[in-house]
């Protein structure tokens, strides 16, 4: 019945085109699945690990800097016999406040690294799928996905945290100079404020003896 049904060049051509299109669509489906499987390793746990490894990298440095700043403050207070004073309470609270804010910064940075990694992964996945839809090359897309995923799985390089308490410790030195100048000049030189750490502060509560 083939001849009677009109099986001819046109139907062969249409059948070949249909077959090609079905194969193309199938390759795109398979390729997309492979890309998604390859990128399946980038789950929430992966991004949590990035945040966590940044914390592990930065937190000891932050603590060390905070420790150094605490020591400097302690020595400054001790030199002036102010360890038992309200000035100590204010200064140590200021330092603690800076430390707490630095911890929030650190946490925000950890989140930022994870978000950056997530965006890079999604960009790569989107690129690969777009290319696959244009080329219909499932094997090429699959190989490219593996290469991109390997590169993306490499831990990012973290920037060291800045010197977070420099302002505080530099401030201590500067304030010391100003307050000493006030003491030596008999009040002729007046700092804008007096912490009482390095000279006399009439407002400070100081426990004697």
């Amino acid at each position, binding site marked *: 019945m083939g*001849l*009677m*049904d*009109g099986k*001819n060049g*046109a*139907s062969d*051509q*249409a*059948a070949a*085109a*249909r077959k090609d*299109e079905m194969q*193309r*669509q199938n390759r*795109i489906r398979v390729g*997309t699945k492979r890309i998604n499987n390859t990128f399946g390793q980038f789950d929430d746990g992966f991004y949590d690990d990035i945040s966590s490894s940044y914390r592990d990298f930065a*937190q*000891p440095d932050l*603590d*060390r800097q*905070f*420790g150094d700043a*605490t*020591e400097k*403050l*302690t020595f400054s*207070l001790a030199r002036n016999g102010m*360890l*038992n*004073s*309200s000035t*100590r*309470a*204010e200064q*140590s*609270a*200021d330092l*603690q*406040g800076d430390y*707490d*804010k630095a*911890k*929030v910064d*650190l*946490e*925000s940075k950890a*989140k930022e690294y994870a*978000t950056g990694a*997530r*965006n890079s992964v*999604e960009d790569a*996945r*989107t690129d690969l*799928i*777009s290319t696959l*839809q244009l080329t219909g090359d499932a094997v090429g897309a699959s190989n490219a996905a593996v290469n991109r995923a390997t590169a993306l799985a490499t831990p990012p390089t973290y920037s060291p945290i800045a010197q977070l308490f420099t302002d505080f410790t530099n401030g201590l030195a500067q304030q010391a100079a100003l307050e000493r100048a006030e003491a030596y000049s008999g009040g002729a030189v007046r700092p804008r404020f007096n912490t009482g750490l390095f000279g006399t502060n009439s407002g400070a*509560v100081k*426990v004697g003896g």
Partner: protein
Amino acid sequence: MAGFLLPLLLGAGSIAANSFGANQAQDAMQQVSDLYGDRKRRNDRRAFEINAKARDRFDDFSGQQDAKTSDIAGLYTSAVDSAPQEPLPAMPSSDSGIVTSRIASENAAAKEDANQNAEARARLESFGDLFGDKSIGMARDAGKLGQIGSFQRGWDSILPLELQAASQKGAGWMMLGDLLNLGSGMTLPGALRAGAGGLTMRGDLFGPGGVV
């Protein structure tokens, strides 16, 4: 009379074969059209579902932002409250109740300030973070829609070929019909001459008392 039977049969066969062939072509074209319509409707439905899902992502955005703010604030305030990883040098403790109380109140104020700062930052960052999450979902949706569009374009590109092939369905029957018609045309004059005996071609066949 028997001589007319063959051309009549051939003529009738021609009409039947042509009609059958034409019906086959029409049915095939209808089938192609139906199949194309089904695919298109299926693709449109999938695209609509993805679009609807994409729209739903933004339902109650402010509520979602509040939840995000709460998540981030929780992260930051727990960081503020967490113990340092390294042992820190502590200041010597004060033996004065007044100083100790002042230290406690100053530290509490500093802690409160840090927590307020953490919550303010969480509010500030929540929009960007939430929108970033949405953007990832939207990019995935766009990828799926792109794939559906690509598939639909593929089917669109082969539709003319399929219609062309369908229009030629039954061509064999139509050719047979043409051949039968030709046969009918060729046998009819002979039948008229031989089979009709003394009848003249026109007058005796179609005239009063004629065969037809």
